[in-house]
């Protein structure tokens, strides 16, 4: 090979092609998740605007309206708009390396969410925004999408002045599959979107943000934990969550795990195994990154179930729920994936925190196993502890607890291990009696004993046993 041969090779063009962003990246995310990305931008807008309110409701006064129908999608907010100085970040396909986060406490890292959501849904988009004196519109057309050589988007001054600073995104020329979901599957889609927003945004809605979907307000469904309040001078076991908190490499971590409801009776467990009675359970771990839930009620190995000495999730553990919160001004340090709806399972920080999550969970799986034959008694203990508290209330209540340092551990921090009630030794002599009888006969005995054929079969069995026991002692 001569030197002349080498000269025939020119440099290789590695510039991106537009269709990659329009058709490929959009496959990595579900429609509902891409809409959550748009809501993330709203909340980042609030943080950027520096108009957050103090106290427990920093987002009060801010709202986002989502409207979808067979031929269009719209999201409109009053969250401060996009300042012109950020246009390069907001509309560029991806974020340049080395660029500092523009919103401390936000979740945007990759600069792809809004564009991916738009391309996921349709071929035409009008983005109108107002931030102080900046008032402009950007239009994405099918022609622009189809032109591989055109990367600049024309910008024009917005015609109308808005009452409040904010952004409106209208997507038209919907992709056929999306149009079908917005019309033919409208009820199902709205229900699922509502559910995702109510769970993934529970903590943000609880802090004052209002979201409406096709006119209906979304109510938060935050995880709640039973927390027996500490009264001065009282000692002894009580139902409280396990809590761990730390701050490391610019990330604050606070996790709490405990009971969200009384533990189930054996009959409840058996009947659920035989026939799925519940379509929705609040059990499992919710993981928050800067207030957004990136996992909701997860009951897999991802959150420690079935790992090390923690048993696999089973209906028996229906009452156990936990929240792990990660908070950082630099979103790139949070253990989340690019879609922001999953955990980066290789994150060192998350793996260390997961150890703590398992440690906490173990306390409550142990309690459940010890009390499962006496679920009624346990129910009374848990109900006596009062109404479950929200995560924010748990954080407030935790200020009155005595934490112990975990310096010897890999992840240093402070933890609170609750002392839960244990069954008395005599109670461990208890034996479970269970048997199966014909349903018709059970109803007949229930009617004989209680004048009600619908009485719970376990009560019927217990009453039969007690009657014979009384008889035998005569």
């Amino acid at each position, binding site marked *: 090979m001569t030197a002349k041969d080498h000269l025939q090779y020119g440099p290789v063009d590695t510039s991106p092609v537009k269709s990659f962003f329009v058709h490929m990246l959009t496959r990595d995310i579900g429609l509902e998740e891409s809409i959550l990305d748009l809501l993330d931008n709203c909340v980042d807008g609030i943080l950027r605007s520096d108009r957050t309110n103090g106290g427990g409701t920093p987002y009060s006064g801010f709202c986002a309206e989502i409207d979808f129908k067979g031929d269009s999608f719209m999201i409109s907010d009053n969250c401060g708009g996009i300042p012109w100085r950020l246009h390069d970040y907001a509309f560029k396909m991806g974020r340049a390396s080395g660029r500092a986060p523009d919103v401390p406490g936000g979740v945007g890292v990759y600069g792809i969410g809004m564009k991916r959501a738009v391309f996921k849904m349709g071929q035409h988009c009008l983005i109108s925004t107002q931030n102080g004196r900046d008032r402009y519109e950007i239009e994405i057309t099918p022609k622009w999408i189809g032109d591989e050589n055109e990367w600049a988007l024309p910008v024009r001054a917005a015609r109308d002045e808005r009452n409040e600073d904010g952004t409106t995104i209208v997507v038209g020329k919907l992709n056929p*599959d999306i149009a*079908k*979901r917005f*019309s*033919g*599957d*409208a*009820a*199902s*889609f*709205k*229900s699922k979107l*509502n*559910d995702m927003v*109510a769970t993934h945004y529970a903590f943000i809605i609880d802090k004052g943000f209002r979201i409406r979907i096709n006119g*209906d307000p*979304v*109510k*938060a*469904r935050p995880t709640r934990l039973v927390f027996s309040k500490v009264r001065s001078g009282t000692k002894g076991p009580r139902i409280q969550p396990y809590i761990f908190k730390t701050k490391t490499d610019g990330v604050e971590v606070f996790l709490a795990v405990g009971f969200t409801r009384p533990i189930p009776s054996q009959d409840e467990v058996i009947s659920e195994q035989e*026939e*799925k*009675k*519940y*379509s*929705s*359970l*609040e059990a499992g771990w919710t993981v928050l990154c800067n207030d957004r839930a990136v996992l909701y009620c997860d009951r897999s190995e991802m959150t420690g179930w079935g790992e090390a000495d923690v048993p696999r999730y089973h209906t028996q553990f229906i009452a156990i729920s936990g929240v792990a919160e990660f908070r950082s001004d630099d979103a790139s340090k949070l253990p989340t994936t690019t879609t922001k709806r999953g955990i980066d399972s290789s994150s060192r920080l998350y793996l260390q925190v997961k150890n703590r999550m398992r440690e906490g969970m173990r306390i409550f799986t142990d309690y459940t196993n010890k009390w499962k034959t006496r679920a009624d008694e346990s129910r009374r203990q848990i109900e006596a502890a009062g109404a479950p508290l929200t995560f924010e209330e748990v954080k407030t209540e935790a200020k009155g607890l005595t934490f112990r340092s975990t310096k010897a551990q890999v992840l240093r921090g402070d933890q609170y291990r609750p002392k839960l009630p244990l069954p008395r030794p005599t109670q461990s002599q208890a034996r479970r009696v269970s048997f199966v009888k014909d349903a*018709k006969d059970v109803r007949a005995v229930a009617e004989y004993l209680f004048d009600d054929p619908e009485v719970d079969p376990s009560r019927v069995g217990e009453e039969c046993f007690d009657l014979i026991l009384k008889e035998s002692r005569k």
Partner: protein
Amino acid sequence: MRHPAYQLRPNKAVDRLTLVDAIRRLSKLTDLSEYTYFGLGGPYLEDFRLLYEFHPEMRMVSIEEDPETYKRQRFHRPCGVPNLVLKRTDSRSFLAHYEAGNQKSIFWLDYTGLEYPHFEEFAMLLGKVASKSMVKITLRAEPKDYLRKGNEFREKFGALMPNRSYDPPRVAAGFAQLVQQMVRITSEDALPSAMPLMFIPVSSFYYSDGTGMFTLTGLVWPRSEEWALRNCFRDWEFANLHWARPRRIDVPMLSTKERLHLQHRLPRSNAGRSLRRALGYLIDEDVRSTEFKLGQYAQFHRHFPYFMKAIP
């Protein structure tokens, strides 16, 4: 096994006759002799008796789990084999083994309760029946069951609720509407818009013969022929083709003499008021509720059976 007194359930009887009406409409689009009717007919096989009367060309299969009720069904069967086959099995096992092939069906999932597995069975059925099959589902819709038990309702049905943040409504109309929305979401999940078949409702009602019930009838139909179905049912007096609020059935208890006195005045507009005047007295608490009840009678008088004392 105890059964309610069927002769004391006039609203259910009306609902049963509206099903016969819907099937008659369907016959304008397809040949009913290609259909098999599957039902959970209870001890008296009332729906089977009606279908045999109106559509004797249709094959019928009864599904019954309880052995004694099964024996009573054999006693009450309105016609012989092969027109009617009595199967002794539970609905879930039956549906699990059911293979439709190209055989069109009319299914009535006539449940007495409201449980999550009922929706699962409904979804399973929508995915299995042949194109142009009719499916009717009846569910308990009694608001009292979940008064102050919002969490229990959410745990059971959260995945199907339009907005699980809210407690189930406390009034019958609202509760029935919620159950209908849950049926709709189930049907959209079972047959999403990406599939060639869709589920189109044709009627929905709620009523109480002592316990609140909701019932909805619809068809599994090719999306490409949606207009033909809507066209066929559009002028039906009970049509609900776009998931509008379910219609209430609450027919009054009238004597045969009263019915004969009123019947020749029907149909007419503003029937409640004119029938009250024709009677000359109140049949309910006040003028308003009397006119409502008589309006109900006017709406359903063709579907309102006569319950008479007979000496065997």
